[in-house]
């Protein structure tokens, strides 16, 4: 095993491979930073150029792109509240409030270091679990995926403390939106109002760009002034402070990386779930949950660590069975096949050197991208000093054009604008956007897998109580639901006892 790891690493240390890796990383960084483009577009553009390359070099190039995208996505998420990629949307939640406080440097530094550390932990985890890859994929069928989606929804719902009713309303609204479009199981169109654009449902990336970037720009244009309200503070935040924050919050980094690894390894779930789940679990585990959404650095570290860790583990279902976790992996899968690397259980046996080389390439690229991100912290942070009348038109134009560029559809831009207005109203009336987004992502997954589970069991709910993984997930679900109640009553009892003790004295 160790010699194969080293062979993969050695293969990557050739000048040609390093050159392609760096070129891919730069491209990934750029495509990740532009809202709407992302890794899938970058890889799709690159595929024809790899025809003449040997498979290892093509993998180094692809690994470079995939490793560079998350850092690029985080830069615009933090600075402009415009998530370059869907998973980076979770970083907006606390990253941008930090930028508004003049701490963009701190947030970018923490994001860059969490990216790198998450990538390294993800690599170590994947190297450890790769031999078990086949079993992991086969453990998660429709009943397990349904419960996993419900678990994700519940974790996020419990994260919206203090405004549970608002959280539930936006969650329910997100679920309603997620049911728009074509039902994969029955083949029926729902709530599309005769608009062909809605056949595929409400698209996630244009919706996220609207909810974050456009909403923020509306908010900023009404408020006026630069993003950073405290223009003096920006000078005292540096890349080193962000770097140290990540290492100080090592528990958050490890938790995020492990969540990223586990979620990434489950077929068809994808990175957006990983980053939002990591964020929500960090909120739940925090002693000061109310500080999240207002600029808590852990709210940046948690999703960033998860995003890069999942990049490696996403390879498990892709390589072992050809089931991609998202659009980026789907295009990468095509690249593999074109180079004669047929995904399937045999690939894990026949092409181990290439697989380990790819994993190393991903890790090297994300560390390299983080390093470049750190170098850019200071100049990029100055973007937050720009005045609204300069920034707002530019960001709104980039957001709308980026949405259009996803698949050259003008309806994407209309959707972005509509979600921008919705996002602004949610900010204005204090409704959490997190629950809406997670419901939007997980709603159709939950529905499809529930329908399939019922088809498997002839309509009996017993299927959720007779499968080991399902029973474990139900137990976790019960724990997540009961923990806040028990914790709350325990705290109340302690408070009463303390008051009684004080009264006796």
């Amino acid at each position, binding site marked *: 095993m160790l010699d194969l790891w080293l062979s993969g690493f050695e293969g990557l240390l050739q000048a040609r491979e390093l050159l392609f890796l760096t070129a891919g990383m730069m491209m990934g960084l750029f495509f990740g930073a532009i809202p709407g483009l992302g890794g*899938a577009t970058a890889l799709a553009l690159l595929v024809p150029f790899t025809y003449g390359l040997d498979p290892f070099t093509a993998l180094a190039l692809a690994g470079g792109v995939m490793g560079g995208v998350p850092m690029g996505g985080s830069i615009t998420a933090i600075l402009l509240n415009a998530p370059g990629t869907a998973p980076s949307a979770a970083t907006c939640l606390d990253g941008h409030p930090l930028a508004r406080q003049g701490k963009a440097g701190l947030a970018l530094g923490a994001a860059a270091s969490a990216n790198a550390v998450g990538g390294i932990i993800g690599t170590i985890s994947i190297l450890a679990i790769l031999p078990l890859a086949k079993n992991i994929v086969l453990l998660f069928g429709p009943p397990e995926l349904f419960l996993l989606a419900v678990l994700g929804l519940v974790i996020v719902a419990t994260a919206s403390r203090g405004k549970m009713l608002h959280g539930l309303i936006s969650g329910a609204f997100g679920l309603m939106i997620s049911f728009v479009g074509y039902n994969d199981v029955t083949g029926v169109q729902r709530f599309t109002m005769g608009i062909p654009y809605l056949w595929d449902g409400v698209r996630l990336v244009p919706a996220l760009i609207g909810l974050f970037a456009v909403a923020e720009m509306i908010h900023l244009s009404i408020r006026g002034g630069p993003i950073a309200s405290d223009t003096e503070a920006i000078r005292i935040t540096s890349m080193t402070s962000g770097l140290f924050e990540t290492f100080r919050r090592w528990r958050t980094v490890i938790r995020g990386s492990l969540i990223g690894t586990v979620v990434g390894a489950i077929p068809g779930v994808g990175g957006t779930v990983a980053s939002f789940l990591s964020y929500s679990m960090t909120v739940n585990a925090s002693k000061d949950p109310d500080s999240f959404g207002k600029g808590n650095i852990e709210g940046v570290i948690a999703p960033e660590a998860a995003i890069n860790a999942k990049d490696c583990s996403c390879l498990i279902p892709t390589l072992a069975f050809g089931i991609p976790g998202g659009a980026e992996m789907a295009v990468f899968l095509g690249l593999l096949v074109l180079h004669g690397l047929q995904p399937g259980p045999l690939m894990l046996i026949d092409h181990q050197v290439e697989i380990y080389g790819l994993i190393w390439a991903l890790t090297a690229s994300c560390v390299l991208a983080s390093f470049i991100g750190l170098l850019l912290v200071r100049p990029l942070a100055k973007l937050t000093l720009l005045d609204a009348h300069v920034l707002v038109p530019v960001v709104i134009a980039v957001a709308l054009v980026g949405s259009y560029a996803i698949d050259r559809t003008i309806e994407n831009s209309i959707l972005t604008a509509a979600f921008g207005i919705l996002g602004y109203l949610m900010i204005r009336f204090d409704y959490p956007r997190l629950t809406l987004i997670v419901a939007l992502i997980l709603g159709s997954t939950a529905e499809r897998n529930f329908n399939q589970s019922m088809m498997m069991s002839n309509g009996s709910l017993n299927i959720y109580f007779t499968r080991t993984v399902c029973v474990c997930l139900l137990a976790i679900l019960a724990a997540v639901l009961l923990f806040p109640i028990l914790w709350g009553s325990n705290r109340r009892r302690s408070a009463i006892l303390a008051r009684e003790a004080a009264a006796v004295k």
Partner: protein
Amino acid sequence: MPRCQKILSRRMFLAGVSAGAPLLAGGTRAWAADSNFPSKNIDFIIPKSPGGGFDNLVRVVVPAMERFLPHKVNVVPDNIPAGGGGKGITQLYRSKPDGYTIGAVDLPGSFVLQQRQGGVAFDLNKIVWLGLLGRPDSFALAVGTNSRLKSMQDLMALSKTRAVKFTSSGPEGTAYAATVIATKILGMNARMIAGYKGSSDFVVGAMRGDGDAVVAPVSTLLPMVQAKTMRILANFETRSTFPGVADVAALGHPELAQILLVRIVGAPPGLPAGIKTILAAALNKSMADPETVRLAKNLDVVMSPQTAEETETIVRQSAALFDKWKQYLAA
């Protein structure tokens, strides 16, 4: 020659010239248009998501096609997967028939889609077919290697006690249509577990035990069989590529061999004949291009150049198969 006859013939000549001139000019213009074609980029609609086998195949063919077109332009792949591919096919169907929009569809799944949409969005019978994307792929019936079903006899015996569950794509997918048609021909009591996202996904579903069996393209099953994770019980080929596995003759149902995954390139109805010839020739030449053949082999697709007429015959066969079973497919 009498004078009146002379005048008549002169009149006739003048009338003929005056009537023919515009036609001649129009013909010249059409010829000029054809000879200038293509003068701008060609949009190649793929009604599937990026990254799947179908998308990869188009992306393999496109660079060669650009080389074989008479003028240097780009052929730009454009993924429009919405509505199970319906939106992409509709866009292809409604585009201007000037040769600058072409697209690929798979059969018989697209016939199901057309039927389910009430035939209002597009009519596959009116699309101008240019050629096939590789040789049509056969289907096979398989189970996971851990399944207690060891043979077709076991499967048929199970079918007598309860519905056999098949994992498959959504109802508009070609694999779904293939499964429904195959189980009807075999006289099997079947139930679908539909909605898987891609062919690998529903094959793994069967491997995991979500359903009892799966009907999938041979090219998808091959790597799983080689890895001993799937076992083929029946192959719908006239001569089975898997040793010891029953083919259509052994199954006693030669009709099963008509169930084929056909990937086909077409253009909007009304495409001028001259432009059709140019596009079909470029597509055909790109199929025979050694680099295309090599890359397609990695996708387990055998490139087999076909004329537009041969392609139309294959479409008609697929349409006839669909027509026969459509009552079970378009519910």
